[in-house]
Structures are given as C-alpha cells and as structure tokens.
C-alpha cells in the first residue's frame, strides 16, 4: 500500500488523445474515473486498468495507470488473474455491453460468486459502435439496426438484475447526465471491498437512438436517493432494477452492509497458513521420493 499523497484528476489523464466520436458519453466516463481515482489517491503505478474490445475498451489507454487493452470479452478473466497474482493492486475492469454481456457474458457470474475485489464498469450504449451499429445484448426488442433490419426479435439482457441475481455485493448505475454523482458512485464502487459493478448509460452519438442521448436520458432519469431507496435492501434493489430500459435510476442499487470475505483476501490467508514448514521449492521433488 502506498503512503497517502495528493493526486488530482489530471494526474490520471494520459497523453493519448481519445479517438471517440465528438460527444460520445465515454468522454464523461473517463473524467468520472479520473475524479474517482483522485479521490481515492492511489498512485497510478498501483492501479491496473483492464478492458476488452470495443469503443469503450479504449479507456485504459486514456488513463495513467498500468493498462491492458485485451481481447473481446475477456477483461474480467484477465483482471482476476492480476488481482489474484497481486492483491495489493487496485484493479479496474471496463468495457461495453457487448463485451461484458454477450461475448464475455459467461465470466461475470463467476467473478461475482468468487467476490474478487475488482470494480467493473460497463459503458452500456445498447449498440455495437466499433463495428458500426449492430444489435447488442442490451438493445431493446424491436430495435432496427443493420443486423436487425426488420426489428430485433430478442429481449435485452438486464445488467442490473443479472448482477444482483448472481449476488454481487455492490451494484450501481450512473450516467453522463450527472458527472459529479458518476464520479462519486465509481469512487464508492472502488472502495467497496469486493466485486463491484457499475452500469453507466453512456450514449452512442453515432448509432444510438434519439431517446438514448443525453436529453432523452435526462427525461427518464431518477435519483435513487431521492426515491428513498435503501441500498442495503437487495429485494427492493431487484424490484427497481426491473425498470431497466424504461427508467434510468441513478445511484447505488445495492451495497451489502456486511461485505463477504474476498477471494483475494482468502488466498492470502491460505498462503500464510500453508507456507509454514513447506519444503523449499528447490526440494519439491522430495515429494516423489519412494523409500
């Protein structure tokens, strides 16, 4: 762990210029991440920021940290290896809705049940942007895209309900409509000791629908705290999460008031317990001696 020292949001901004479309919601998301990291104050070299493939998966490159822009759908498997190899690191994973809930959809359940202390940010824009406008796992049923030219026949995935149902200890939603609260939600997610999921409604200005742009999002957004939602109430959180796609609830849906032990914490305990009296590794072949 580092000594505390002062960091500002700009200290986490890298020299790379984003190649996102002008007006893309992801510009706000990366700002929110800089602010959250500054509030937490870990030096950049103690942060590992992992992504998959997609427009939003460019984000580690725009952040001063150890970044890893990996392959499509596999941010989480790689992030968990990093955290288990070095639990001291602050590990962030990020990507889009296709990356996280379609090609990589098999991983999130397992990171949740292992409760690995990683913060996972999905920039959910209900479309495949990098491949130019195909149907995504969170696209609304009936949506017309280049791969659903007569309208989608599929129900969308509900990322909030999905993660809550698998037992995530921290589930929240944010949006560029309120940058200050987005930054504080991300900060809270990082501080949560365990797997934390933040779904961010991040509009695609090029392929997104009108209703999903900032103006449209503002029209359906409601702050969970003003609704009087108790984030310790998982069932109430699941009830609210069912309105995903119709309402934009911003804030913390669920925060486990009694966080479960983390996998990375448990392996440390196991290492400490089992390393006592172990054979030195130079003598590991003694295990095979037959007398």
């Amino acid at each position, binding site marked *: 762990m580092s000594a505390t020292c002062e960091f500002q949001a700009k200290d986490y901004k890298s020299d790379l210029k984003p190649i996102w479309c002008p007006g893309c919601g992801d510009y706000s998301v990366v700002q929110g991440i800089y602010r959250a990291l500054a509030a937490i104050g870990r030096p950049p*070299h*103690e942060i590992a920021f992992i992504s998959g493939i997609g427009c939003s998966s460019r984000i580690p490159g725009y952040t001063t940290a150890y970044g890893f822009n990996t392959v499509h759908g596999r941010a989480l498997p790689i992030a968990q*290896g*990093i955290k*288990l190899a070095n639990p001291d690191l602050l590990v962030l994973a990020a990507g889009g809705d296709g990356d996280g809930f379609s090609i990589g959809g*098999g991983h999130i359940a397992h990171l949740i049940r292992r409760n690995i202390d990683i913060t996972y940010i999905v920039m959910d824009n209900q479309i495949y942007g990098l491949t130019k406008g195909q149907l995504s796992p969170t696209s609304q049923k009936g949506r017309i895209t280049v791969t659903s030219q007569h309208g989608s026949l599929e129900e969308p995935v509900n990322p909030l309900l999905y993660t809550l149902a698998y037992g995530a200890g921290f589930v929240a939603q944010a949006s560029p409509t309120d940058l200050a609260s987005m930054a504080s939600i991300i900060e809270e997610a990082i501080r949560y000791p365990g797997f934390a999921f933040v779904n961010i409604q991040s509009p695609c200005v090029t392929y997104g629908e009108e209703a999903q742009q900032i103006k449209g999002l503002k029209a359906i957004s409601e702050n969970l705290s003003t609704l009087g939602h108790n984030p310790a109430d998982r069932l109430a959180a699941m009830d609210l999460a069912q309105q995903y796609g119709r309402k934009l609830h911003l804030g913390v849906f669920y925060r486990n008031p009694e966080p479960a032990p983390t996998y990375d914490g448990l392996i440390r305990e196991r290492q400490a317990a089992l390393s006592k009296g172990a054979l030195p590794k130079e003598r590991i072949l003694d295990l095979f001696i037959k007398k």
Partner: protein
Amino acid sequence: MRKDLVFGMAGSGGDGIVSAGDSLLQAASAEGYHGVMTKSFGSQIRGGESSCRVRISTEPIPNPGGNLDVAVALNWEDFLKFGAELPVSGTTVVIYEAATGVAENQIPLVGVTPLQVIAVPIAGIAKETAGTERAKNTVVLGLIAGWFGIGGQAVMAGIKKKLAKKGEELVAANQRAFDAGVAFAKEHPLKTDMTVIPSGNKGALKLLTDGNDMAAAAAIFAGCQFFGGYPITPSTEIMQFFTNHVWKYGGAVLQAEDEIAGIGAAVGASFAGKKAMTATSGPGLSLKSEMMGLASIAELPLVIVDVQRGGPSTGLPTKTEQSDLFAAAFSAHGDVIRPVLAPTSVADTFRVVVEAFNIAEHYQTPVIVLSDQEISQRKETMDPIDTTQFKIEERLRPTAADLQEYKRFRITENGISPISHPGMPGGAYLAAGIEHSETGAPTNSGSVHQRMNDKRTKKFDPLLNREDLFEITGNPDAPLALVAWGSVAGVCREALQMAQAEGLNVKLMVPYLLYPVAEATYNRFFASVQKGLVVEQSHLAQTFKVLRMHLDLPKGLKSLARSGANPFLPGEIVEALHHLLAELQRSHEGKLQPQE
C-alpha cells in the same frame, strides 16, 4: 533369468487391475528395479475396460515396452479392446481367468501362438481365501511374485500400508489371497524360467511419479506462482497438484469458469509480474488460441502445457497421440512464432518445463509444452534430480535509467525490451492486443507493424542455436537415421540400440525444441543421411510436414506415421530400418553397374 519384463494386464473397471499395477510398480521400485507403468482406459468413469502396462528392468527404461512378456486377462472381452496397446506374441506368457470358460488352446488371440497359456481360477482363489472376488488383483500379484520373482515381500508391505486403516482382517484376507497366488505359481511352474535378476540396488533412493505431477512440480521449482486452468483429461492432474502445493510458495491457483478464463487469468498474472502457467488438452488448446496470440503481441511470458490426446474434437480423450503439433505451432492467427517444446519421459518433463519457463521469461513469449497422454499419466521410477544444476531465468526488468523515459516495447538489438509490471513506480504502460508503438500507444501504421513484427520474430534467433535442446545418438556419420519426439522418442531410443546390436549404422535425433524449426541443426544432422524415418503418432504426419516446410529433406527420408492409440514397437522400427538399408544397398549396386 531376465533383465527386463513387460507386463500387460486388463480387466473391467472394478477389477482393480490398475491398482495391482501400481502395487507392482511400487514394490519393484522398493526392490531397486527401474519401472514404468502406463494406464489405458475406456472413457467410462466406472465400469468399462481398464488396463495397465508395467515394465520392470535392472536397467533404465526408455519406454513402456513393445510386445508383452506377460499378459494377464481377467476377461477376454476387455483385454481385446486394447488391441495394439497390449500386443501378445510368440514370446508371451498368457495368464487368464479360468472362469471365462475358454480352453487354453482356444484363447481368442488370432494368429498368435503364445509361449505358454495358463488358465488360473483367479476369482475362485480370491473367494476361497479372502471371501470376496474383490481380492482378484491381490491373487494376480501373488501369481506374478511366484512366477517372475517380482514383488514378494514388498508387494504385501505396500498393500498392508494401503489397507492399514481398514482393519487387520482385510490385511490378513489379502495376505491369504496373495499367498495362494504364490502357491498356485509354485505348483504350476512355467516351461521357461522367466524370473527377473535381483536388482542389486535395493534401498537406492528413487523418485516415482507421473508426467503431470512432474510438470507441476517443475513449474513450482521454476518459480511459477500462478496457475489458471479448467479440468480436461488427460491434463487435469497438473491443476490438482497446484491446488495442493502452490499456496506454500506464495502462489495461487484458479479453477476458472472455462478454458479461456483459465489462460486469461494466467495472462493477467503474468502481466502482474508473476510467472504463470495453464495446462490443457486438445479442445482446450483450440479455445486458448486467441489468448496465446494476445500474449505473443503483448510480449508476456506464459507456459501452456498441452497434454495431447487423440483428436480432433473429443476424439480419443483417454489415449495418446501426437497430433497437436500444427495447433501448437500455428493455431493463433497472425504472423507469430511461439516456441514449442516436448518432453520424452517423466524424468525429462522436469527439465523441459523448467526450460519452458526460462524461454518464456527470457523471450517474453508464450511457450507450449507438448506432453502426451502416455507421458502425463505414466508412472516412472527415476534417479533423484539434482535441482541445483538448473539455472532459473527471470524476465528483464527495467533499470532506473530505463524508467527515465520508459518505453515498454523499445526496439533493442536483440528484440527483448525491459518489462515492468503493475506496482513498479515509473513503469506504467498500456499493454494491448492492438499493434502498438514502442511506448505502447495503439497504431494502425504499416511501418510500425513491420518493425514490431521484426522485433517479435527476430528475438527468437538465438533459440535456433540451442543444440542442447536436441539429443543426437548413434554414429554421427550414419547413412540411416531416425527422428522422433515425445513418447515415441523412447521407442526409437530402444530401436536404435537394437539396430546397432544388429550391426546397422544408424543414428537418432530427438528434438526437445519442435518449433521454431532449428534448420541448421537439422541440416547438419541430415548431411550424412541417405535413408531414414520420421516416426510419429499422427495420421497426417504433422512432424514430417513441418520439417519439410522448413528444410530440403534428404530424398530417402520417409514418414512412419500412424494414428494415436496404436503404439510403435521397437522391433517394427528396426525392421523398417533393415528395409531401408536393403533399398540403399540395391541403389548402390545399381550405380556400380556399367552404363550402356
């Protein structure tokens, strides 16, 4: 008296034939013999057929042996399912269960007249002495001790140890079954003496283990601190070893949600600065290929053990084959070199896995270790390995000067750039699957791509001069040659000895480094070669084709290739060499004839 005996035993799943093989091997090892045991099963978890082969010798053993000296069939239906894996010949003593009702002159082995055939009421003896047919395997061990002089006290000592917790009566019952087996053998002496020479080496310190456990132990010795994997036959025991031991060395293991996540976590651990490994078998290797490409372009060290089995797809999941060479060398897309190494025995699995870590760390690359089902699941006695003679390499870390203006992918003379890891101040960079500049910035530039491809491929040049990764035996100027790797190498080592004893002028190359192809090393080896064989268990002759792709092979070099689960016998290779020699002599005579 014999120096060497090969036992092959088969029965149905519950007969305990493999456990009898284990007891025999352990007893032989305790008595100072060298021993090798392989197991072969059907795919059923319970029931179905199971078999083992145990070879015992006073000399070090190159392979599990060719034709059986002793065949034990608890029933014929199961025995016959193993076909060429349990070959009976005119020098085999066949022992079988009398209760099968088959007459000694009517055993169902077509075209073979064994040396001797003996029906033994194995189940009957077990029932009579131990009160249960479950003691059949102990009766078999008694027969073996009686007829062949192997086991004896050591077998019962092992059984006592194993059954100690289950009570004295069970131990006593097994002792009665064992003694009855010995007595039966004494009452029915063999026509030919087949007892094994006493080892004279009793009490010598030996290691006894299989290839999977050896691979895992070698990895931990090499400093591996993370294993990510997914269960798949026949590689799973590697992960199992890690779950037992790696914590003691400050490491961690993850049984991941799938093959991709298993290698993904290992890639992550390597990015985080730790030596990391995954292990799998055929279908899993296919799933991992995208991640191998990522590790290559991100220049991250990683060891992948692929325990080959029959393919494609599910194929023959419990049988050995050498058909993953193409996949290992070429499966990830893009222009990439990925070193591939192969062990030939349990003992040298240690050296090969340590070498794989050294190459991975030195060259910052994924390295594949191509083991195979036979090596991975065969148990072998071996002399203790002096671990102090192994040098352990670590990846090149940036110096303080490097970190002044750190470029993770700096183009250096040898193509190897200092690598930082999260936690290291001043070393933060972006790793990526996308092409990148020296600093790690993403790029679409053709010229940068060209330079980076150059860097990532030329860095392997020194590997091509590693002659220590090739074993060459026999006369260096021989006109006849054999090339073989993996478990087939051991068969060819024995074939070489037999051929030399028969006066053939022959040599053998065993590559431990399969890819990249060390062209100069092969060319030197082939310089004297007029006729030869590349021997492999691959229907498509993948090794022969990879060599042909890189080399102008001698015209007389042929492929001796066949599908997995059809083992080669040393004798047939010697016979093939005799044919090649005859061809060679004919062509020489042809040349001597006056031209019209």
